[in-house]
């Protein structure tokens, strides 16, 4: 479970995150929805302890991210916005490197990466060097290495960015499987349809603030719009008094 309370982060005079609070529960897919520049990536970076919030708190499975970032990172599987691979290493070597950094032993790394390679359909390119991988192959490898330590919480920043239709569908199935395992899945997106088909709960962020935190149905009801896209436009276009 991931809990965020009153998160603030400022870069110089630019306020990126201005009091974000939400909760992502286990066994639930939570979507962080917002237009580009709304503060999604910064919020997530504070979550996975890459950045230190100016104010506010983050707790993962009850552990304070600021007090004990190491323990929090062990409980998180993260697919950041930056998902570069080591091009001179094979996909399998890329995955094993992160396994070792998590302190896993070689036998565990071997069995887990074999399982991930099977689950993500990576067998065909697993032992090829990452140089020249397609976007889909890169994302699959990045996900496999992010989950090598079998984390209970999974954070993905725009996971379907740059993927074709087939790969996007595969990604959705994969996220549903993570939910079925009882994990807490939190992902960000600026694409309405994506959030609509996947999420059990939607947190809409605009200008660094949460403007809605509902189930898809409640969101439609709240805004009085029949389809989610209109609801979304309405939410981010109006000021916070209406949205709250």
């Amino acid at each position, binding site marked *: 479970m991931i809990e965020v309370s009153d998160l603030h982060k400022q870069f110089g005079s630019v306020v990126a995150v201005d009091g974000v609070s939400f909760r992502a529960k286990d066994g639930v897919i939570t979507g962080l929805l917002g237009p580009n520049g709304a503060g999604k990536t910064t919020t997530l*970076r504070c979550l*996975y*302890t*890459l*950045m*230190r919030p100016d104010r506010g708190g983050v707790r993962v499975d009850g552990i304070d991210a600021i007090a004990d970032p*190491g*323990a929090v*990172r*062990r409980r*998180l599987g*993260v*697919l*950041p*916005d*930056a*998902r*570069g*691979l*080591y*091009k*001179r*290493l094979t996909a399998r*070597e890329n995955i094993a*490197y*992160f396994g*070792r*950094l*998590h*302190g896993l032993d070689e036998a565990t790394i071997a069995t887990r990466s074999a399982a991930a390679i099977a689950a993500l359909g990576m067998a065909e390119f697993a032992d090829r060097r990452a140089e020249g991988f397609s976007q889909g192959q890169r994302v699959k490898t*990045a996900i496999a*290495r*992010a989950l090598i330590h079998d984390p209970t919480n999974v954070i993905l920043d725009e996971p379907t960015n740059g993927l074709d239709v087939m790969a996007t569908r595969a990604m959705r199935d994969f996220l549903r499987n993570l939910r079925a395992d009882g994990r807490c899945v939190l992902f960000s997106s600026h694409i309405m349809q994506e959030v609509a088909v996947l999420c059990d709960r939607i947190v809409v962020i605009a200008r660094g603030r949460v403007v809605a935190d509902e189930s898809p149905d409640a969101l439609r009801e709240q805004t009085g719009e029949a389809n989610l896209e209109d609801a979304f436009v309405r939410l981010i276009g109006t000021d916070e008094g209406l949205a709250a």
Partner: protein
Amino acid sequence: MRSIVTVFAKELKDSLRDRRTVINTLVTGPLLAPLLFVLLINTVVTRELEKGEKPMVLPVSGAQYAPNLVAALRQADVKIELAPADPERAVREQDADVVLRITPHFADAWNKGQTAQVEVIYDESQSDSRSAARRLHALLDGLSARTGALRLVARGLSPSLQQPIVVAERDQSTPQSRSGVLFAMLPYFFIIGAFIGGMAIAIDTTAGERERQSLEPLLVNPVPRWKILAGKLATTTTFALATVLLSVLAFAVVGHLMPTDRIGMTLDIGVTFVVRTLVVMLPLAALIASVQTLVAAFAKSYREAQTYVSLLMLVPIVPVLLLSFLPYKAQLWMYAVPLMGQQIVIARLVRGDAVPAVALAACFVCTALVAIVACVVTARIYRSERLAISA
């Protein structure tokens, strides 16, 4: 410790698979300087030796005024030629190395037993002309001394009257220490070797990793940043040291290929030389690696990092070149200064001079301390939030 080793092993494997880095740091870097050296020294030495062995060709103006002198020069294996019309111009334009001019007054003064003057026209700024003039001067001095002695004997006096003092030179140099002059640049090559060896890796593991978007995922792992940095620094240091080692070994081989013994010099790079050089270079390599990493981590892009780290290479040039050419007497504090200490130790090893153990220890310990400070500073910088973010 385990995570440091993990990072080190991965960076090592990754870098060794990069053919361009391997060629630049482990082949071109260490081998280029020794090859240039062999080429340069072979050419210079062979040319000098050939000139010394060949009979001298001497244009003489006014040979008719001093037939005796000309005959004596011929006997000394000098080939006499007719001088060009304008000897000064011929020398200036390098048509002749040296020209001997004998004036009409010569015969008169010579016959009266007075001091007779000849002119040697040469150009001090041209090495060929300079050496030819020296050679001619020595020949003429010899002739002059011999004639003087004969004249004294003819008047019933001892020739030793003419030379109240005779100098006996006792040169304390050895073939190896003389080579120190020729190989003054050697320490510089080793130090630059460490820079070249570390450069590509320092950039690749920081600015490069960020530009390839793999730094952020790496830092999300539950490993303290300083440990990740330590693994990367260890890789950079390893490459820097490997370049130095290869460079030293290359010079050891090259020492045997150069005709230095023919000019009374030897370049003797043995096991003690290699071990001591590596001992003093180890902390310097770590220091260089850490400063390169610091500079590269600051840069916004790979290209910017390349520019900064290349500029960094100019830092050792001034002190090292100054020490190479200025005479100095080594003091203990000099060994303690990073770069300077390595320069002095290696220069003394090249000359075959002993390096006191305390000096060696001062060099190692002080450079190591500075390296540790540099690593700590780099680790602090590495904690910055900005570092991980690529865009």
